[in-house]
């Protein structure tokens, strides 16, 4: 017995230490940007199948708004938006995968919060999608407002901000609820459909997307209440400022391109003929933005040509050009009453 005991102890120590080594080895991998250039692809963490944000088509190619952010970074760094390898992560896995260096960046509808930005060794770049938490209920229940949900059972995804917001909302309204927590978004929707819970709650964008996957989408309605701020933001590991800047500016380039009217169709034209100095600086015909970022000078032109500007990507994946038909709302440019705002290029 004693001997067995010792052996078990040793085994657990070894296991702990192995876990430790995973963290240890990665820190010596060097700056992420150099590493990405050397290996020739961006390892990008995306969600496990979310319509509009990241989903695989019949040929196994990934599409979606989150995927486009990964592709933009690959276009900027490697000049080819296809040089991305994707890692599908559940909500539970995503932060550890980024911390441990399994992925170079996370573009996985992840809410930027203080606790994640603070003590978890990750840094959020800038908001890709302004979202809020909503509720999806079966029409049969006859519920029209979240305030009528006292005593209801909720399906949620483990390890999300959603879990915390839900508890806060019910606590502040003096109502009771029962949470049933699932690992994946699909499992929670399946449980909603089979009646395990009355309500499913997650970010509104996901509600619209996943609702389409239900067998009878029209049986379910999205309640009007939005109970939280969910700035969905790409994230990188802490301690690599250079890589952080590249990811942040890849998204900013898409926003600036939309604001300046550069699209994937006219970008070639713009490079040749535009007189606008803002456009010239962004597309690299003037100034040293590319050099400053340790990128080729035509990095932003490559992004717009291969991925499109912010508006194009939004329309294609989430908006009018998709099945989801989500309105731009908060995600319209600041010039059109939204919150999206690319920092100036100069």
């Amino acid at each position: 017995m004693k001997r067995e005991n010792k052996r078990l102890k040793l085994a657990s120590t070894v296991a702990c230490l192995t876990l430790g080594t995973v963290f240890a080895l990665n820190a010596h991998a060097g700056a992420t940007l150099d590493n990405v250039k050397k290996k020739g692809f961006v390892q990008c963490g995306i969600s496990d199948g979310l319509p509009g944000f990241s989903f695989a088509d019949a040929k196994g190619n990934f599409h979606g708004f989150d995927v486009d952010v990964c592709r933009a970074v690959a276009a900027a760094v490697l000049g080819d938006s296809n040089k991305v390898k994707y890692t599908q992560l559940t909500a539970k896995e995503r932060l550890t995968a980024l911390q441990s260096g399994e992925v170079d960046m996370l573009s996985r509808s992840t809410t930027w919060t203080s606790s994640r930005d603070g003590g978890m060794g990750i840094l959020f770049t800038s908001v890709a999608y302004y979202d809020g938490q909503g509720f999806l209920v079966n029409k049969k229940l006859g519920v029209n407002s979240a305030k009528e949900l006292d005593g209801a059972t909720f399906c949620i995804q483990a390890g999300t901000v959603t879990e915390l917001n839900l508890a806060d909302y019910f606590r502040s309204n003096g109502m009771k609820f029962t949470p049933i927590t699932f690992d994946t978004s699909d499992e929670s929707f399946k449980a909603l459909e089979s009646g395990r819970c009355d309500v499913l709650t997650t970010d509104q964008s996901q509600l619209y997307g996943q609702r389409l996957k239900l067998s009878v989408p029209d049986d379910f309605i999205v309640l009007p209440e939005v109970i939280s701020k969910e700035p969905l933001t790409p994230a990188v590991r802490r301690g690599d400022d250079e890589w952080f800047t590249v990811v942040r500016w890849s998204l900013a380039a898409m926003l600036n391109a939309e604001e300046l009217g550069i699209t994937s169709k006219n970008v070639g034209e713009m490079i040749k003929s535009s007189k606008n100095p803002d456009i010239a600086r962004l597309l690299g015909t003037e100034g040293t933005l590319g050099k400053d970022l340790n990128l080729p000078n035509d990095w932003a032109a490559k992004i717009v040509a291969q991925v499109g500007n912010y508006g194009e990507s939004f329309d294609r994946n989430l908006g009018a050009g998709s099945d989801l038909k989500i309105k731009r709302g908060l995600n319209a440019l600041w010039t059109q009453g939204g919150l999206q705002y690319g920092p100036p290029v100069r």
Partner: protein
Amino acid sequence: MHTQIVTRPRFSLANPATRALIFQLLTVIAVVAFGWMLYHNTYTNLMHRGITTGFDFLQNTAGFGIAQHLIDYTESDSYARVFLIGLLNTLLVSAIGVVLATVLGFVIGIARLSPNWLISKLATVYVEVFRNIPPLLQILFWYFAVFLSMPGPRNAHGFMEVFFVSSRGLNMPAALPADGAWPFWASLALAIVASALMCRWATRRFEATGQPFHKVWASLALVLVLPTLSILLWGSPVHWQVPELKGFNFVGGWVLIPELLALTLALTVYTAAFIAEIVRSGIKSVSHGQTEAARSLGLRPGPMLSKVIIPQALRVIIPPLTNQYLNLVKNSSLAAGIGYPEMVSLFAGTVLNQTGQAIEVIAITMSVYLAISISISMLMNLYNKRIALIER
């Protein structure tokens, strides 16, 4: 002692004992240095990345809801309490699973040896089907195909208007302590003590004089009569709170959530298949001569099994049975797939994600499983020692 060391200097590389000592010392130093290097490296890198370390997070407010908690819990409680709830939920499933799987396993194992063709073949089919399907699939099957396909709470199947089965689980009346609770428990305790004393007295008398006494019937009478008297005198020990449909769900009463039901059922059915085989092999290991001897003494099949065969078979059964118990406990972590809030799903899942402290959370979770498993194997080893063949 002292003079010995002086007269026979032992420190010499030619001495094999000294060499062995040196090598062992070097190995220990190497292992410790390796461990320290890993620790130091991890710690430095965590610091470098700005990842919080240490166990302070256990005191922080959790802030999320939990579907099933055996102790009181609100969202403002700490992660430490969440840990406790996860641990209790794991222990609950394990305890119920171990008991049910043992009973079912023994029944199936004995049934497999039955001279009745149908019974033995049914038992064989059971064993072959359930031990060859991965436990996760079985859990998902019971959960999604059985429990979640029940009607919603508004169309629940009711039994006698007090039990309700729906996709929300099994709702049943709760027994809340009433006025008669204290006298009831006191009289029950009294009855048990009295029967124990009576049994001792009866055994002594039997050994001394050979006069038998109806111990079982007398004890049963005591245990039944005394508490009934207390109920008649002081009223019922419990008052029943019947669940009723209010709003979305049943309110009041106790509820067994479908996640718990599916997990317990799947683990029981899966593990029982293995236990059945262990029981069968245990019984087979008892030589046929024992059966013949018991028969020739005129024992009926029941007492023959319980007094002659099983006690001898247990010696073969207990060690592999321990393994099955350990497997059951560890398999309970598969509940993460159906959202039952046990250690892995609740603590190594939600808490890990909310705090981001992977190393600490995983280390705690691993040591919990280690502790549970070691406790079980220690208890089983103790039991094994007690029932071991005492050679005279």
